[in-house]
């Protein structure tokens, strides 16, 4: 009797794991923030693409086992990609931990992350480097309590004008964000915002084209990907619009003049450098009627889910995600080795 020992072979050999000659990459995702679900999705997608590119990649939650995992010689990774969104992921904490552990990682250092994570501070920093940003004020809930909420609400409307945006000063995925178009909406928008954090950023809502520009280290150079324009049926890009595939449309590059596109890419690089960011970032802008990109915020751990802007921008620009992410890994490893 003969035995056929042939095993099933993947149709696309790129799916086969071809362990490269280095320690595994660890993607840290999950965490305890409000953006846990987005982070898990980002992390698992990056893991999949890097595996396709031939890397050995593991994922780990930010939990009580993580330190042991990082320090144990049997599991210690060769490189870490922190893909935690929200607090502890983007506020620099996990990056401080990785530096203390002596591990190379992809992305910005702790101090720069902390600056970018705090939207009001980030706005000030990029303003000093010559970029424009919508007029805003930053108010903790306590200020409303001490000075009286009614008077403060009136003053806000008088000062910022309507429409305006209310956002938690720290946070992502548009959680806790509201657009306010009439005075009576403002108190509830503030209550909803303070449910996510103690400080509100109240920002003038500028009419224009909402875009994001992703910046990545590609082939050893820092490059701005083509600006991505966000279009939603009702003009509101909230959590639901971000996480539900379908109704939201992206245009890459954005439907702007070549000069505006170039200005937006330059502005993203300026913001990236001004904030001291490293390797990868995504900066959100509103391009006003005069074609000026107005800085809204920069993200040090941009979303990498199936509906996220950075990967969509890269795909539309003709990049293959396994290659692109692999190039970033190579670049960071090379810098670390040198």
């Amino acid at each position: 009797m003969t035995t056929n020992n042939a095993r099933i072979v993947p149709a696309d050999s790129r799916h086969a794991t071809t362990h490269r000659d280095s320690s595994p990459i660890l993607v840290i995702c999950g965490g305890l923030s409000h953006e846990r679900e987005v982070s898990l999705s980002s992390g698992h997608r990056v893991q999949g693409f890097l595996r396709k590119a031939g890397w050995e990649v593991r994922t780990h939650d930010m939990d009580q086992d993580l330190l042991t995992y990082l320090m144990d010689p049997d599991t210690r990774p060769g490189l870490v990609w922190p893909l935690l969104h929200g607090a502890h992921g983007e506020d620099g904490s996990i990056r401080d931990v990785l530096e203390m552990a002596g591990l190379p990682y992809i992305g910005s250092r702790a101090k720069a992350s902390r600056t970018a994570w705090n939207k009001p501070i980030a706005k000030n920093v990029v303003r000093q480097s010559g970029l424009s940003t919508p007029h805003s004020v930053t108010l903790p809930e306590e200020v409303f309590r001490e000075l009286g909420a009614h008077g403060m609400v009136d003053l806000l409307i008088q000062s910022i004008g309507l429409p305006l945006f209310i956002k938690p000063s720290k946070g992502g995925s548009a959680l806790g964000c509201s657009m306010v178009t009439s005075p009576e909406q403002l108190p509830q928008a503030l209550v909803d915002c303070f449910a996510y954090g103690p400080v509100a950023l109240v920002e003038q809502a500028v009419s224009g084209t909402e875009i994001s520009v992703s910046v990545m280290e590609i082939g050893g150079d820092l490059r701005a990907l083509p600006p991505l324009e966000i279009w939603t049926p009702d003009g509101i890009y909230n959590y639901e619009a971000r996480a539900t595939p379908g109704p939201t449309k992206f245009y890459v590059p954005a439907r702007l003049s070549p000069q505006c596109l170039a200005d937006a890419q330059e502005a993203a690089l300026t913001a990236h450098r001004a904030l001291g960011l490293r390797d990868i970032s995504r900066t959100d802008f509103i391009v006003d009627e005069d074609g000026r990109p107005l800085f809204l915020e920069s993200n040090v751990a941009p979303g990498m889910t199936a509906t996220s802007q950075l990967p969509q921008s890269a795909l539309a620009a003709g990049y293959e995600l396994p290659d692109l992410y692999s190039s970033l890994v190579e670049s960071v490893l090379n810098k670390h080795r040198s």
Partner: protein
Amino acid sequence: MTTANPNTAPTVISNDPWFDSYAHRAESMRASEIRALFAVASRPEVVSLAGGMPYLGRMPFAELSEQLARMLREQGEVAWQYGSAQGDPHLREDVLPIMALEGITDAQPDDVVITNGSQSGLDLITRIMCDPGDVILAEAPNYVGALGVFQSFQVDVVNVTMDADGLIPEAFEEAVQAQRRAGKHVKMLYTVPNFHNPAGVTMSVERRPRILEIARRLHVLIVEDNPYGLLGFDGRTYPALRSMDAQNVVYLSSFSKIIAPGMRVAWMVAPPGIRQKLVLANESAILCPSNMSQMTVTTYLDHFDWQARIEDYRSMYRERRDAMDSALHEYLPTCSWNKPKGGFYTWLKIPKGLDAKAMLPRAITAKVAYVSGTAFYNDGQGADHMRLSFCYPTPERIREGVRRLAGVIDRELDTVSLFDTDEGMDAQQEEQR
């Protein structure tokens, strides 16, 4: 590496090229902030008073694994094979003594259909009974899983008022008449008569025949969903509606709460005509329930004292209900709640002006989770309530969770009163009622 595309003509990316092709019934299937927040609830740092997971820590898994290994050795080819769309005859026999505990003594194995959990049973009965625009009457608040099924079949769910004795018969009759006057086709009444999810109340014994009489007279099918009936804390069971009427009631029960939910095994009992269509619908949906799961259940029922296990569950859940009640008295005396006599849930009314849905991010930050009352209504009501589950956390964790929740409510009250949004909230809730 592939280089960037030099072509600058915009590419339109919709993220989902099939978006325009979906059926209308898929429109409500969208991501939400609330769902995203629940991703954190599974972390051990968070005291989750949200999910209705039974506590399985006392199951005799070591002994069970021996019996299951034997079952696989002796009947593996059956367990891993296709089976009957109606379900394993052995299991359909086994459910009869379980139903007898709640007075159903006239059912035959042929009346029984095994389903993939009662959720699948709800899907099947709605699938065969309801067209888009038909009306299902249901208690308000209503089991969120049933609302999801009804919504997916584009059925109009009309709320029927409940009180401490469960569904109010007069309200049921009035609702049927009002819908018929409006030209609507009322297809069924959906009820969870025992230890209701989320309200925790039980339909009184006196009301049961009255509800049945109205349903018979007005020709409205009753769908009786009874997952918790054997989990009364004083050991008492209530006569199932199906025990008093075999022709006008479709009965659903499940092993999820009295054994474990992981097998996804439940059953339905229906009059012959409906039963036949349920079997065909089951076959169409899933071909057959999993033999492996069904035989796991029969192995458990045949080799273990399942009644003693239920007794143990009752005692454990009673202790947890008491822990919840005591913690609420201590930390949240400004709220009001029921003290359920069985089941898994406490239905908490929060202080005036608070919105349980809007408050959830603050709760997640404080590492405690609950389900906002809005999940249990189809019309935006319920923001003034939350469902607190006491089934899974230990009494100590329940107490800690309620302590954290009290802090969340205090802080939210501070913020809401600061901005005077409580008055607007009250007006909104009144309008929705």
